[in-house]
């Protein structure tokens, strides 16, 4: 339930895991908002004006003021809406530091491994991207063990900061697995993450905002085809000049 007088608008894109993080955060906090789907090949005036530095989604506009960068937005929601459910970040400074560390790891290592896989043009590059992805998953398995202390989530018995950070990628984990024939959060290698993925996806607040995996698979296949086309164009061009 939105506090009287609070206007929340989210500029996003259906397949953006970063925009999904914010949708999840808003959903878990029970905050209502207006959603604007952006066409990133034809960015709206509002997006360009609200995020002039990066021109990226997500952007949360709260009573006309824009907040950019997904995890900055998630912390903002904790701080600006203290009454809207339990905060995502724990109260103890050390635990907060650990949560921030892992959220940062997800962006720096897991996401960049995916980018490497997406951009892979050769079998070698694909193998490297896969290796990095699986290594990141293993590290996150350890993180989950450490943070959850036997509870279902990184945040303990309720969804917390790291759950939201990783949750943005949840639908893509399924889609990616399908497009690239992987099992990133494999039940044998990373049992806690496999269980987390299933459990997170079952939460009502998550279900309410998760994108359709089928659409993501379609998009993933399209991106793969584009990368392959770009690679063969480049190879043809290289052959012509040598």
């Amino acid at each position, binding site marked *: 339930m939105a506090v009287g007088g609070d206007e929340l608008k989210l500029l996003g894109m259906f397949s953006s895991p970063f925009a999904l993080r914010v949708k999840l955060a808003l959903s878990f906090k029970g905050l209502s908002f207006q959603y604007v789907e952006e066409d990133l090949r034809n960015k709206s005036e509002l997006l360009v004006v609200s995020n002039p*530095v990066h021109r990226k989604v997500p952007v949360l506009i*709260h009573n006309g*003021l824009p*907040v*950019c*960068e997904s995890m*900055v*937005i998630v*912390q*903002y929601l904790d*701080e*600006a809406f203290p009454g809207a459910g339990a905060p995502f970040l724990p109260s103890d*400074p*050390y635990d*907060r*530091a650990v949560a*921030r*560390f892992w959220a*940062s*790891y997800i962006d720096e290592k897991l996401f960049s491994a995916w980018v490497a896989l997406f951009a892979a043009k050769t079998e070698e590059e694909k193998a490297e991207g896969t290796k990095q992805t699986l290594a990141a998953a293993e*590290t996150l398995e350890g993180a989950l063990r450490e943070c959850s202390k036997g509870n279902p989530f990184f945040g303990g018995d309720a969804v917390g900061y790291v759950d939201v950070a990783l949750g943005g990628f949840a639908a893509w984990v399924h889609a990616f697995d399908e497009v690239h024939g992987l099992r990133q959060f494999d039940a044998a290698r990373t049992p806690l993450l496999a269980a987390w993925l299933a459990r997170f996806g079952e939460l009502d607040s998550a279900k309410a905002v998760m994108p359709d995996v089928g659409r993501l698979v379609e998009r993933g296949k399209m991106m793969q085809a584009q990368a392959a086309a770009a690679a063969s164009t480049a190879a043809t061009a290289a052959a012509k000049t040598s």
Partner: protein
Amino acid sequence: MAAKEDLQLLGLAVSPFAIRVRIALNLKGVSYENLEQNLMDKSELLLKSNPVHKKVPVLIHGGKPICESLVILQYVDEVWTAAPSILPAEPYNRAVARFWAGFVDDKLFPSMVGILKATTEEERAAKVSETLAAMGKLEEAFAERASGKPFFGGDSIGYVDLALGSTLIWLEAVRRMFGVAFIDAGETPLLAAWAERFREAEAANGELPDADIAVEFGRTLQARWAAASAAAN
């Protein structure tokens, strides 16, 4: 006078990420043991304290390690709550501060490192443009946000000041190596004046080694990258 804390910092004199933590601790008047690391021969303590990244800085408080410089800055602010505050009080201003500190680390610094790493003149020129563009955005940000105050953080050094100020020795080092000024009284007048104030601030001035030390370090990095690339080919 604050009681002595069980606090160690694993850092490097020339690392902007470690510099910003040292300045933050100085701002808070907290004493700590500074343990200079050798990144070519990493200590047992570093490997144990930061097994994931094996990087500096690491702040060890009461035996518990905190890694990632911006995470450490927020930790310091949240544990030692006496003034000055590193992050502003108001949620929107905090979000803006986090945005710009992130910008320094995700855009400015990598572009600048790219100048050092570039193997062709073309690549180098591209990275120089990128770095200049990033500085231009920070100049605009200062104009918009500082409202006549001396620092991004207002009257005293704050989160963004720490993030950007700690890169000053490297911006100067790259200028000495390649002849491009990234902070310039003509192009970025507000940042030029801000940089002076930052360098002279009590909490900062003992923590900024001469840029020539960074130049030397930069040359070592370049040699290492070249060797690695030659080995790979």
